C-alpha cells in the first residue's frame, strides 16, 4: 500500500511538472544571442540601442553584437564556416545584399522565415519592391530564406544650391537634360575651384546596380525571357553611352574607378553638383552640408534632392538582408529579436531619418516625417522596381561588368566589344538561381 502511495505521489509530481511546462509554452526567453552585422550597420542601425531595448524586455537574455565586413570573401567564409564546422559564429546575421547571399540560399543553408510572416509582418504588409526581391520560388513555406532589413533605390541626387547657381530651373527628365545640367554645373566655380558636374558609380559596389536601374526604369526588367541578363538591352546601351559622353565631355569624373566612396564624398563636400547613386546619399549630403551642423533633420531643409532615372518611374531596389543559418544555436532568440527590434517602427524610422536607409515595411514608411526625398523614393518603390540578380556567379558577373565598363569608358574598347565580352562571360558563368536549389527537407 505504501508503495502504491509512493508511486502515486511520483506520478502526480511528474504530471504536475509536465503540465506546468506545457502551460509555460511561452517561457521567458533566456540565453545569449549573438548577432553579426556588417560593420557600418552598428552605427547606422543604432545597434547598441536595439540591444539595450531587447535586453530590457527580456532580462534573462544577453545580446552580443559582432561585426563582419561587407566586401571581399567575408560572406563566402561565413557560409563555408556553417557548412564545414556545423556551427555558426552568430545566431543571426544582418547585412549582405541578395546577390551576395545567393550562394547560401542555393546551398539551402538558411532557415525560411515564411511561418513568421503573419499579422503586422504578413507578406502584403511589406514594400513589395524589397520583399519580392527576397522571394524564392519553391515549396510552400520555403519562399523567404532572407528578409529585407533596410532598403534603398538607385536614382540621381543634386545639390539644390549649386543647381540654382548654375541657373538650372527644372529637374532634368531625359538623358540629354541630365547631360546639359551636368555640363553647366561643371562650368561653375566654387571658391575659385571648378566642381564636378555629375559623379557616377563605376566601381564594384554600385556600377552594375546603376545599369540595372536604368534598364528597369525604361524596360521594366533587365532579364531576358530566358532569365539571363539582357546585355543587349537598348536602354542598357543608352545608359553606358550616356556615361561615356559625360566622361568624355569632362562633365563628370571617374573617381569611383578605384575609390568606392569617391562620388558620395564629392557630393558631401560640395565638390559635385550631381551624383548617381543609392538614395541614402542625399540624406548624408544634406547632413554634411547643413549649416546647422549636428541637427537631423537639417533645419534648412533638404539641401540634396533627387530625381528618378529617365523612363517610366521605376528603379532598382536593393536591400540588406536578415537571415538565420540552419546551424544557428539560438533560432528562437534570433527570431524574437528580428520581430521585436530590427523590424520595429523605432529601428526602421530611426535609420531612415538619420541615415536615409529606407524602411522595408509600409507601416514604418508611413510613419516617416514629411520629406521630399522620402516621397520621391516612395514613387520609385511603387513603380516597376526590381532587385539584384541572384545567380551563383553573381559576383563574378558584377566584376566582369565593372571591368568591361571601365575599359569602354577609357576608350580601350568599343560598346559592341563590351557587350560581346559580357555575353561571352555570361556563357562561362554558373547561372544557377536560388529557385533551382535542392531543398534538404
Amino acid at each position, binding site marked *: 500500500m505504501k508503495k502504491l502511495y509512493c508511486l502515486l505521489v511520483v506520478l502526480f509530481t511528474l504530471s504536475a511538472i509536465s503540465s506546468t511546462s506545457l502551460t509555460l509554452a511561452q517561457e521567458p526567453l533566456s540565453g545569449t544571442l549573438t548577432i553579426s552585422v556588417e*560593420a557600418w550597420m552598428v552605427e547606422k542601425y543604432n545597434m547598441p540601442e536595439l540591444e539595450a531595448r531587447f535586453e530590457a524586455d527580456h532580462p534573462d537574455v544577453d545580446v552580443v553584437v559582432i561585426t563582419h565586413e561587407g566586401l571581399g570573401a567575408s560572406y563566402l567564409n561565413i557560409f563555408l564556416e556553417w557548412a564545414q564546422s556545423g556551427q555558426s559564429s552568430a545566431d543571426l546575421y544582418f547585412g549582405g545584399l541578395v546577390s551576395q547571399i545567393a550562394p547560401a540560399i542555393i546551398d539551402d543553408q538558411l532557415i525560411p522565415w515564411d511561418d513568421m510572416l503573419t499579422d503586422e509582418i504578413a507578406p502584403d504588409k511589406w514594400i513589395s519592391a524589397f520583399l519580392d526581391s527576397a522571394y524564392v520560388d519553391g515549396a510552400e513555406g520555403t519562399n523567404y530564406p532572407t528578409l529585407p532589413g533596410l532598403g534603398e533605390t538607385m536614382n540621381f541626387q543634386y545639390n539644390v544650391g549649386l543647381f540654382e547657381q548654375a541657373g538650372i530651373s527644372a529637374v532634368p527628365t531625359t538623358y540629354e537634360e541630365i547631360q546639359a545640367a551636368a555640363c553647366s554645373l561643371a562650368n561653375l566655380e566654387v571658391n575659385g575651384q571648378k*566642381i564636378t558636374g555629375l559623379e557616377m558609380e563605376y566601381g564594384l559596389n554600385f556600377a552594375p546596380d546603376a545599369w540595372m536601374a536604368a534598364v528597369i526604369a525604361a524596360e521594366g526588367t533587365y532579364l531576358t525571357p530566358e532569365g539571363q541578363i539582357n546585355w543587349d538591352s537598348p536602354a542598357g546601351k543608352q545608359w553606358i553611352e550616356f556615361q561615356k559622353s559625360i566622361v568624355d565631355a569632362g562633365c563628370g569624373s571617374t573617381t569611383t574607378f578605384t575609390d568606392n566612396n569617391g562620388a558620395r564624398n564629392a557630393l558631401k563636400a560640395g565638390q559635385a553638383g550631381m551624383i548617381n547613386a543609392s538614395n541614402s546619399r542625399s540624406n548624408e549630403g544634406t547632413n554634411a552640408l547643413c549649416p546647422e551642423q549636428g541637427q537631423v533633420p537639417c533645419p534648412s531643409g533638404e539641401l540634396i534632392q533627387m530625381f528618378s532615372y529617365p523612363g517610366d518611374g521605376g528603379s532598382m531596389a536593393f536591400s540588406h538582408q536578415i537571415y538565420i543559418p540552419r546551424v544557428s544555436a539560438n533560432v528562437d532568440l534570433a527570431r524574437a529579436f528580428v520581430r521585436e527590434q530590427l523590424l520595429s517602427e523605432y529601428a526602421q524610422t530611426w535609420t531612415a531619418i538619420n541615415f536615409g536607409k529606407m524602411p522595408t515595411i509600409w507601416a514604418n514608411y508611413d510613419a516617416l516625417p514629411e520629406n521630399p526625398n522620402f516621397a520621391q523614393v516612395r514613387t520609385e518603390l511603387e513603380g516597376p522596381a526590381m532587385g539584384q540578380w541572384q545567380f551563383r556567379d553573381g559576383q563574378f558577373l558584377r566584376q566582369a561588368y565593372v571591368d568591361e565598363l571601365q575599359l569602354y569608358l577609357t576608350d580601350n574598347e568599343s560598346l559592341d566589344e563590351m557587350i560581346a565580352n559580357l555575353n561571352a562571360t555570361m556563357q562561362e558563368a554558373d547561372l544557377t538561381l536560388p529557385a533551382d536549389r535542392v531543398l534538404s527537407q
Partner: protein
Amino acid sequence: MRISSYDRRYQFGLAVLLTLLCFITIAPFVWVVLTSFKPNSEIYTTDLNIMPQQPTLEQFQRIIEKGDQLPAYIINTMLYSVVTITAVSILAAMSGYALGMLTFRGARIIINLILSILSIPWIILVVPILVFEFQLKIWNTRAGLIFPYIALFLPFAIWIMRGTFMGMPRELGEAARIDGASEFRVFWQVYLPMARGGVATVILLTFIDIWNEVLLAASLAINPQIANINTGLRILADEGQSFAFGTLSAAILIAMIPTLIVFIVLQRYYVRGISEGALAGF
C-alpha cells in the same frame, strides 16, 4: 687647403640630397598629421587649406569614443607578435641547431624542403587553411591565426639560425662531449648562448613581418575583437565609409606609436638584423 674645402662642399652636397630624400619620406606623415587636427568640414571641402584653420582634437576624440576598437587592434597585433616570436625563436633555434650543427640522416632533405617553402606564395595556402580551420573550429579565433603564423615564419627563421650555428666552431662541442656533457647540455650551455645575435635577428624580422601581414589576417581573423592592425585599419576605413580620412588619420598616428617605440629601442639592431636576415640564404 683646397682638398678640405672640396670635402666640405662634397659633404654639404650629400647632406642636401639626403635632406631632400628625408623630406620625401616625411611628407606623407606631415599631411596625415595636419589632417588629423582638422574638422571634417576642412578635410573634404572646395576650399582646401594646408594648415588647419580651426585646429581640433575631434578626430582623436572620435577614435577614442569607439572604445576599445583601435586599442584592440594594437594589442592583438602585439599579442600575435609576442606569441609567434616566442614560438618561432625557440623552434628555430632547436631546428637550426639540428640542421647546422648535428649530423643525421634526412638533414639534406629537410633543408631543401625548408628552402622550397620559402618560395611558395602564401595565397595558395589560403583555401586549404580555411577549410582545415573550419573543421578544427579555430577559424576566426586568435589560435587560428597564430598557428599558421608560426608555421609560415618558421622556415626563414630556421634558415637564419642554421647559418648562425654553422658559423660556430665545432671544437667546443667536441670538448664538452669528451668531458661527458650530454647532447642537450652541449646545445643548451655551449652553443645556444653564442647564438644571441641570430635570435635577435629572428625576433626583429618576425616582428616586422607580423606587423606587415595582411593576407592571412584578412582571411582568418576578421572579427574586430581579434583583428590585427592591418585588418583593423581597413575595418575603420570601411566603417567610416565616406569622409573616412579624418578619423583614419588620427588612427594611423596612434597605431604608429608602438612600432616607433620598438624601432627606437632596437634601432641599432635594425641595419644589421635586416641585412643579416636577407643575406643569410646566400
